[in-house]
């Protein structure tokens, strides 16, 4: 019976397709289980054990919530996250509004500058702030006493953290709001106008309700990012403890894995909430625009445009000044006493950077993550979106694919230690190699790429698959000849996303790198810990420049591809 079944499977094309697709679905699910769910489960189980690995129930949680210092960290984290997300979203709203609803000049410039913070590790924002607002900062000292005024702010602590998080989350909020604002029904504005509504009233009654989902979503995203960020509090937090730095102290400082896992779980909670809200909103957002909607028309308004232009100029200026300061600090001999030019700080051999090796390792990890991650994610999205087998399994796959959205990097890193650093695990061999770093990065950044891929695939009519199937063309030929070429812009976008994020991330990989595989971003943390701030600035600069460089190559190389596929996708329009 088995043989006939086997023969049947392979003799007809449809049978073969089905067999390959089903196997692939299993492989994908297995991959997601290994890379996402199993480590998460290990983390959960470890949160209930003590240092020696003995089961102690809720002991760790009880200990955590009864220690006043930990409760303080929790409150601190809540405070900085709420403050950062509100400020960041408010600033981003103004910025995105200007770029979508006004006729200001230099939109392209503003758009690029707003994304700049995405190319830098969060430690860099902190480092930049210390050079600007620290006790010896340019602004604090009034350009080293050259200016008649001084401006002192109490940087180290909540102020510094909030400033860094605002810079870090600004591009994220801006991107979400840009999309939200670009859909609008002009009919509503006309109606409001006929009814005699003023400008402010129009903004409050038409614009704001129209983008409310975008607003909520961006608030949650910014909140989660600030809540889980490690880099900025590490650099400018001073003695102001937050959850992320607590985990670092528990795990790296005291090697207390159980307690680290406990704090990790506390760290997931807001992220899970944000995730749920985001999922609910996702469904609602689609229905805002109907076929009868009219596109927004930008009216003329000199005063508005001048004001908002100035506003965008200030924001862009702030981002550029911060980046420029870090770049300058990397070349200055002894800040602030000897401001002569030097390249010494790029010699990482005498500091925790250990030469250029961490940089090369980072490049290698980022490249592998980009290549393997993109291939894996796209195929995963394809299997879930385009095949018709095992509906339940595919749904489980979908859930597992977007689950990492709710997992902070530190949680992934800790989960990976528990799951992979276990001699009974057959995959133990990847522990301590470059591959665990690649896998952790893939898991960490999987969801966003997955959503990009799914969105692109959704635009493709199912007719393609059906037509090829009825003509007896194997599905993989359709995949290679039609699906991939059409989705190429999305695929390249995913590759970029994986690469850039792998270059800047520190939270997951911090727990996983082996002695001879230190990453550039981790070396920044180590150098800052040792007080070598200038070399840390230099390394940050290398990362930013690499990312911008790669992005520019991508832009140039894909201009043709994007034009072609855009033309194809819009051929009817």
């Amino acid at each position, binding site marked *: 019976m088995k043989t006939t079944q086997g023969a049947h499977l392979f003799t007809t094309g449809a049978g073969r397709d089905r067999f390959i697709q089903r*196997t692939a679905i299993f492989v994908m699910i297995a991959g997601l289980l290994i890379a996402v769910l199993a480590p998460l489960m290990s983390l959960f189980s470890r949160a209930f054990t003590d240092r020696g690995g003995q089961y102690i129930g809720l002991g760790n949680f009880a200990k955590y919530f009864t220690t006043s210092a930990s409760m*303080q960290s929790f409150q601190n984290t809540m405070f900085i996250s709420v403050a950062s997300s509100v400020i960041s979203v408010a600033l981003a709203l103004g910025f995105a509004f200007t770029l979508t609803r006004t006729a200001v000049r230099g939109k392209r410039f503003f758009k690029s500058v707003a994304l700049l913070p995405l190319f830098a590790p969060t430690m860099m924002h902190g480092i930049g702030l210390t050079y600007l607002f620290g006790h010896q900062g340019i602004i604090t000292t009034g350009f080293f006493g050259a200016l008649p005024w001084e401006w002192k702010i109490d940087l180290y602590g909540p102020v510094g953290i909030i400033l860094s998080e605002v810079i870090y989350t600004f591009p994220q909020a801006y991107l979400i709001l840009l999309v939200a604002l670009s859909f609008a029904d002009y009919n509503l504005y006309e109606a409001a106008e006929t009814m005699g509504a003023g400008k402010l009233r129009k903004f409050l009654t038409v614009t704001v309700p129209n983008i409310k989902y975008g607003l909520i979503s961006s608030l949650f995203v910014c909140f989660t990012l600030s809540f889980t960020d490690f880099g900025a509090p590490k650099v400018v937090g001073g003695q102001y403890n937050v959850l992320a730095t607590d985990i670092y102290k528990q795990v790296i400082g005291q090697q207390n894995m159980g307690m680290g896992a406990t704090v990790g779980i506390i760290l997931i909670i807001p992220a899970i909430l944000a995730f749920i809200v985001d999922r609910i909103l996702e469904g609602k957002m689609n229905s805002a625009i109907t076929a009868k909607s009219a596109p927004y028309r930008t009216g003329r308004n000199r005063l508005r445009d001048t004001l908002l232009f100035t506003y965008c100029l200030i924001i862009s200026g702030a981002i550029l000044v911060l980046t420029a300061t870090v770049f300058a600090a990397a070349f200055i001999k002894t800040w*602030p006493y000897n401001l002569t030019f030097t390249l010494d700080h790029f010699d990482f051999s005498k500091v925790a950077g250990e030469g250029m090796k961490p940089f090369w390792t980072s490049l290698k990890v980022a490249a592998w993550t980009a290549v393997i991650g993109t291939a894996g994610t796209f195929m995963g999205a394809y299997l879930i979106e385009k095949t018709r087998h095992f509906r339940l399994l595919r749904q489980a796959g979908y859930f597992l694919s977007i689950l990492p959205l709710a997992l902070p990097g530190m949680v992934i890193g800790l989960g990976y230690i528990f799951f992979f650093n276990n001699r009974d695990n057959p995959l133990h061999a990847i522990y*301590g190699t470059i591959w665990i770093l690649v896998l952790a990065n893939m898991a960490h950044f999987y969801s966003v790429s997955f959503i990009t891929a799914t969105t692109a695939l959704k635009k493709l009519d199912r007719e393609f698959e059906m037509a090829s199937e009825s003509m007896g063309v194997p599905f993989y030929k359709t995949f290679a000849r039609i699906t991939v070429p059409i989705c190429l812009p999305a695929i390249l976008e995913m590759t970029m996303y994986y690469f850039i994020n792998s270059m800047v991330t520190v939270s997951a990989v911090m727990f996983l790198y082996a002695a001879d595989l230190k990453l550039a971003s981790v070396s920044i943390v180590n150098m800052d810990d*040792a007080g070598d701030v200038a070399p840390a600035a230099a390394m940050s600069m290398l990362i930013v420049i690499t990312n911008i460089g790669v992005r520019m190559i991508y832009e140039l190389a894909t201009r043709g591809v994007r034009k072609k596929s855009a033309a194809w996708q819009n051929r009817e329009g």
Partner: protein
Amino acid sequence: MKKWTGLLATMLMLVSFLAACGQGTKSEGANQLKDQSAGAGKEAAVSGSKEITVYTALEDDQIESYLESYKSTYPDVKVNVVRDSTGVITAKLLAEKDNPVADVVWGTAATSLLVLDQNGMLEPYSPAGVEKVTPEFKDSQNPTHWVGIDAWETAFAVNTVELKKKGLAIPQSYADLIKPEYKGLIVMPNPASSGTGFLTVSGLQQLLGEEEAWKYMDKLNENIATYTHSGSKPAKLAGTGEYPIGISFGYRSIQEKKKGAPVEVVFPKEGSGWDVEANALIKKADIKPEAKQFLDWAISAEPMKKYNENYAIISIKDDAAGIPEGYSKDPVSQLIKNDLNQTAKNRDATLAEWTKRYDSKSEPKQ
């Protein structure tokens, strides 16, 4: 039924595929490791196990120059150096107690090695030439459980430019540090992570007695702006003037001055707390001959000369060797009386108390 056999077959395929994947990554991973050992070249790959893992808390800017003579003597041994602050290295070693990764500990606080020894984690081994080591700087048992290479001590790095701007005198003693005018100007390493922080705290305990020491530190805490992860950072922060007074250690403070930062190195009048940077062999199933060889090398003449370039006090007295620039004429007299064994025994309790009192210092700004 048919459907299920199909499913079963698929599952089987899947499992074997996964297994193959596992194999694949395994060998790839191994290759990767070998790639990384490119320094030692092909020999290492051929002869296989000539590789040791060394845990150390030595300074980043020292390790490379120290290792030069080792690399030229043993070019075929690949040394994986894991460096971190004393507290982190100690915690790491303790965490790996049942499954040690390190073969050798090098240049790490004796008080930490004593903690490991109290946990039965050290393999007694007397390296060649151990008889030349000054008795205070090595274990009294034979064979020795740990052997020191040098001693380091508390020093303040004080930024003269910034203090002048504020019209403040340079603090010369621990007593000076708690004066109200220095409020918010002092940075100190966290003893839980930093060896320098720990020897400073234990030094105070031995100078003042336990109770008085906590009282003193309560007052000092009032003046401290922030506690840092490493013992070097306070000196570097003093160097840039970010915080003008850094409680650090001799080598790093002198180094900052040499680099051109306007700092003065102050050894506190009351005397400095100190510790020994020491080496030990880790007890494990397969103790590699290279590990012992490394320990022999680590107290031989070449590296000793290098240690002496950075530290005034080394564990093998050599009358020809001078005192490195920046230290006082008689560095040994600066050291307080210090019972390393007792300090090691109290280490956990001291750190727990310290963390409870000062770790979340900035919390209530109400």
